[in-house]
Each structure stands twice: as C-alpha cells, then as structure tokens.
C-alpha cells in the first residue's frame, strides 16, 4: 500500500504544480479533477479497513467533484462571455487589484 500512498501524493503535488502554473481556467479545472483522482487513490487502503465508510467517502467525493465541475463550467462560460477570455488573470477575487 506504500506505493499507492506515494503515487497519490505524487499526483497531488503534480496537480498543485499544474494549478500554480496554469494560465487559463480550463487548466485549473483539469488540475482540480486531478486532485480528486489523487484523493480517490488515497482512500484505497480505507476500503481494506472500513469498506462501508470508504464507500460513503467515495460517493461524497464523486458527487462533490461533479458539482464542482458543473459550477466551474458555468463560471468559465460566464467569464468567457463577460471578459472574452478565459485567462487566469481574468479571475481576480477578494479585491485583488493589478
């Protein structure tokens, strides 16, 4: 199971690096999905210890991922309509100013 943990952490760090280096919102969405894939890999040993709990966690994670995809698709389309671009610079939050 060590290799599963290591692989999961490696995928998670790669997803973080992709999110940090992303230049557009699509790449950011892809990196978020990759983080969920890492999560799925990480809970594999939980299936061997507590299968029912692990399955509940998996269902929650899958539905969270699906909802996140729907919300982000809507956000990307709205951003594209409003700003005519999906660059990451378009997404400024929290009073961020250039």
């Amino acid at each position, binding site marked *: 199971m060590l290799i599963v943990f290591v*692989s999961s952490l490696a995928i998670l760090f790669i*997803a973080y690096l992709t999110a940090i280096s992303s*230049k557009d919102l699509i790449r950011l*969405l892809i*990196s978020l999905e990759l983080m969920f894939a890492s999560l799925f890999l990480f809970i594999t040993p939980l*299936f061997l210890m*507590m299968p029912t709990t692990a399955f509940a966690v998996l269902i929650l994670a899958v539905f969270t991922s*699906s909802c996140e995809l729907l919300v982000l698709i809507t956000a990307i389309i709205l951003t594209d309509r409003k700003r005519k671009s999906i660059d990451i610079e378009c997404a400024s939050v929290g009073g961020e100013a250039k």
Partner: protein
Amino acid sequence: MDIIASLTVVISLFAVLASLGVLLTRDNFYAALYMSITMVFVAAIYAILDIQPAVVLITLIFIGAVGIVTIALAATYRAVPTRKINLAWALPLIIVFGLVCYVYMNTTGGKIEVIGSNNLIAVPYEYFFVLLLLFSVIILMMLSAIKFVRGSRL
C-alpha cells in the same frame, strides 16, 4: 512480490506518468486526455484490489461523465497558450514530498489487513471482461475525440 502487488506498482507508476503529462503538455485538450487516463489507472487499481463498486462508480461517473465533459470543454476552448513554469516551485514540492515519504516510512508499521471483506459485493471474476470492455469503450471515445479535433483543424 505477488502478481497483485506487481500490477499495483506498475499501474501506480503509469498513473503518475499520465498525471505528469497533464503538467508537461501545453495543449489543454491533451491535458484533459491525460487526466482521464490518470483516472482510468486509478480505477484500474481499484479493479486489481477487487473493489468493484468503487470501480463502477469511478468509471461511470468520474471518467464517463466528469472526464468526458472536461475533454469536451477543453476541446471547445482549445488554445495553446504560452505557459511558463517557474521551476522554483518544484523545489519546495520535492522537499515536502520527501519529508512526507520519510515520515510515513518511519512512523507506520505493520501490515494493512482486510477486515470485513464480506461487506463488499461479491462479483464473479468474469466481470473482468465487462470492465475490459468498459475501459475499451472509454479509450475509443477518447480516440474519436482526438480524431474529431484533428479533423476539424485540417
């Protein structure tokens, strides 16, 4: 090392390599494809460990719905941006990754044992062929998406 452990190691390595493809490719469409391939490998690890409900859930919803929609979205907003990765970010990631691996290897002991494995749904081994067909269909869908995008570019 038995066959299950060997397959787990090999498929885990493939999953990491596919996720590296997400990081290294500049085209969003191929990044989405690599992401879906990573998900396929994650589902394959579940299949090797014979956790069939999770395989079906991940394959149908996470790959079949989320992955394909992401591929379609990346193909729609297809652009090849000039992306620069600041390699300085890789150093703290490598340090943290090494620390986590070191702490895990030094603090955990014993084997993980299967408790209550009867709680999982018993699935006959012929189900493997159904899974094989399912993964083949997913790969065919990805290949047809590649063909569609390349055809529209010509």
